[in-house]
């Protein structure tokens, strides 16, 4: 039946033949009438909006634009559009300030932005100041894809910079970095000290430097950015900057940064030292010029246990670690209450660039719930790591240096044999094994 539908429609087509279109003379007149109007004068008109619709559109636009404008004002996201582009060396400096990116299998996850995160072309001058030396220092900023910005002060005592995450993630009211042109003389803490950075507190509008002599200076800011040379009178100790206060529009202090030049670091507690008999818990050959690796233990002078790993080949071996770091319950710092991972695992190596030969070993400790530890290789073989009073050292055999056979996981098991910890060891990390690869020329790695 469906096939007949079109035929039936054609048969019953209403009579409205082209002949009904009218007199040909009328068509000619219509043609002349249409083309008499210039085409460009009759370009399609913009649709006319009734007043009510126009008002609604304006209201909607206002509802969207107003919060955006306020956010742009407070977060300074438009700074880049307002500044001047920097010269090429500055772009290179900002680029070099960040760590190079590497692949997900070439090392642990990278914290902070990498060079790949830089938004090319967003580099701008955001502040500048004329120094006492007569030179002009400029503050440059660049946007990063992970949020926030990196900035660099160029032309001060020396070039330097820093990065800050986006305002919503930043818990400090101001991101400030300091430069000092050499050690101070005759009672001064520094020569030509400079402060630079940006206000990160939302809603804050101004910045004040408070000095040790109770005086203060308002630091000029431009869209939250600042580059400030400390006045010479405040280079003297006793008059140095002690605090940066961030103020809102009403002059209320909404945040502070203490000791911007790091002149008054907090005192650290006196470290614990080993005392009494030192015991050797394990001894392994590194397979390199007869060197021996020893795991040693001793009692601390405050009752804790102290441990160290001695590498007879290296002078870079870490010293004693005492106290709660290797306490009975968990390897945590004193006063720390968070639960640490059940295994602390470090991989150390000696890699001599393109020259083959060296060593790779692991060291660390495990938590109280770990009954056994094993290392798994890329070729699916597994080797146990002996535990000595919850401490261990393990020398990676030369047979497991080549890519495809390298250590890939460390796995901890409880008494029932259940895996309670597993960590990827990034076997593809370049130049991590002493194979003497040409691509590792110039990369001498030794970390104990």
């Amino acid at each position, binding site marked *: *039946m*469906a*096939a*007949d*539908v*079109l035929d*039936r*429609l*054609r048969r*019953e*087509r*209403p*009579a*409205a*033949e*082209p*002949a*009904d*279109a*009218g007199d*040909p003379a009328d*068509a*000619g007149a*219509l*043609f*002349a009438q*249409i*083309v008499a*109007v210039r*085409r460009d004068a*009759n*370009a*399609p008109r913009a649709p006319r909006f009734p007043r009510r619709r126009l008002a609604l559109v304006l209201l909607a636009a206002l509802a969207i634009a107003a919060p955006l404008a306020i956010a742009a004002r407070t977060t300074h996201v438009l700074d880049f559009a307002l500044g001047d582009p920097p010269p090429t060396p500055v772009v290179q400096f900002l680029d070099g300030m960040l760590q190079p990116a590497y692949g997900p299998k070439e090392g642990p996850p990278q914290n902070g932005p990498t060079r790949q995160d830089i938004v090319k072309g967003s580099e701008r001058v955001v502040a500048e100041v004329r120094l006492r030396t007569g030179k002009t220092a400029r503050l440059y900023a660049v946007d990063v894809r992970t949020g926030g910005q990196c900035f660099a002060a160029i032309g001060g005592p020396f070039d330097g910079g820093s990065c800050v995450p986006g305002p919503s993630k930043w818990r400090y009211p101001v991101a400030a970095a300091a430069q000092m042109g050499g050690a101070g003389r005759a009672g001064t803490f520094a020569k030509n000290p400079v402060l630079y950075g940006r206000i990160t507190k939302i809603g804050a509008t101004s910045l004040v430097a408070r000095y040790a002599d109770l005086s203060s200076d308002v630091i000029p800011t431009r869209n939250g950015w600042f580059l400030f040379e400390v006045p010479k009178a405040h280079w003297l100790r006793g008059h140095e900057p002690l605090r940066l206060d961030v103020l809102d529009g009403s002059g209320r202090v909404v945040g502070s940064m203490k000791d911007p030049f790091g002149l008054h670091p907090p005192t650290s507690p006196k470290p614990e030292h080993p005392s009494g008999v030192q015991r050797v818990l394990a001894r392994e050959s590194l397979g390199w010029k007869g060197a021996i690796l020893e795991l040693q233990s001793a009692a601390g002078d405050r009752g804790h246990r102290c441990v160290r790993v001695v590498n007879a080949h290296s002078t870079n071996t870490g010293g004693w670690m005492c106290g709660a770091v290797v306490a009975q319950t968990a390897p945590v710092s004193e006063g720390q209450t968070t639960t640490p991972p059940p295994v602390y695992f470090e991989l150390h190596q000696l890699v001599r660039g393109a020259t083959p030969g060296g060593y790779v070993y692991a060291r660390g400790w495990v938590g109280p719930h770990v009954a056994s530890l094993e290392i798994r290789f890329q070729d699916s073989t597994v080797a146990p790591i002996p535990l000595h009073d919850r401490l261990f050292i393990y020398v990676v055999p030369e047979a497991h240096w080549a890519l495809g056979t390298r250590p890939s996981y460390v796995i901890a098991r409880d008494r029932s044999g259940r895996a309670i910890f597993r960590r990827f060891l990034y076997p593809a990390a370049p130049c991590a094994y002493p194979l003497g690869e040409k691509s590792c020329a110039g990369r001498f790695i030794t970390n104990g």
Partner: protein
Amino acid sequence: MSDPHAETPDEQRFLRVFRQLPAVTAYARRRGSPDAEAIAAETMAVAWRRLDAVPLADPLPWLLGTARNLLLEQYRAAQRGRVPSHAEDVFYDPRLEPGGLSPELDAALRQLSPSDREALLLIAWEGLTSAQAARALGVSAVAFRVRLHRARRRCGALLAASDLRPIPQTEVSNGR
């Protein structure tokens, strides 16, 4: 239709479009427009203003699409202030046509959705190919073929259902 006089190159290009005036007028009339000539004239005026957008090799689909929009605009202007049961019903009103349709076909077309109905009528009444009709409706050729297939099947089912309807007893007795 004798060729009107075209002087400039633009007018000569437009003339190729303008030759479709009778087909556009017939289209507007078959869709129930009380002023088909005005719709066709306005369609041509739009084509002149937007001559660069008109495919000169085959302008009819573009013109029918424009005429359809103008008819819809005319219908909306007429219906403003009222709530129509279906905005596109005006595009098929056989009562305005001389001769009319058979009641079964009339009923079947009225039960189709406007898009299905237009797909059928562009092929059957306006004589377009599937590709031309797709351009007139602003859809892809594949989408149009699917729509046409669906419309033919639905319309066929509606006509078949009307054929199976019992004939009223009075008519039977009258036939004897």
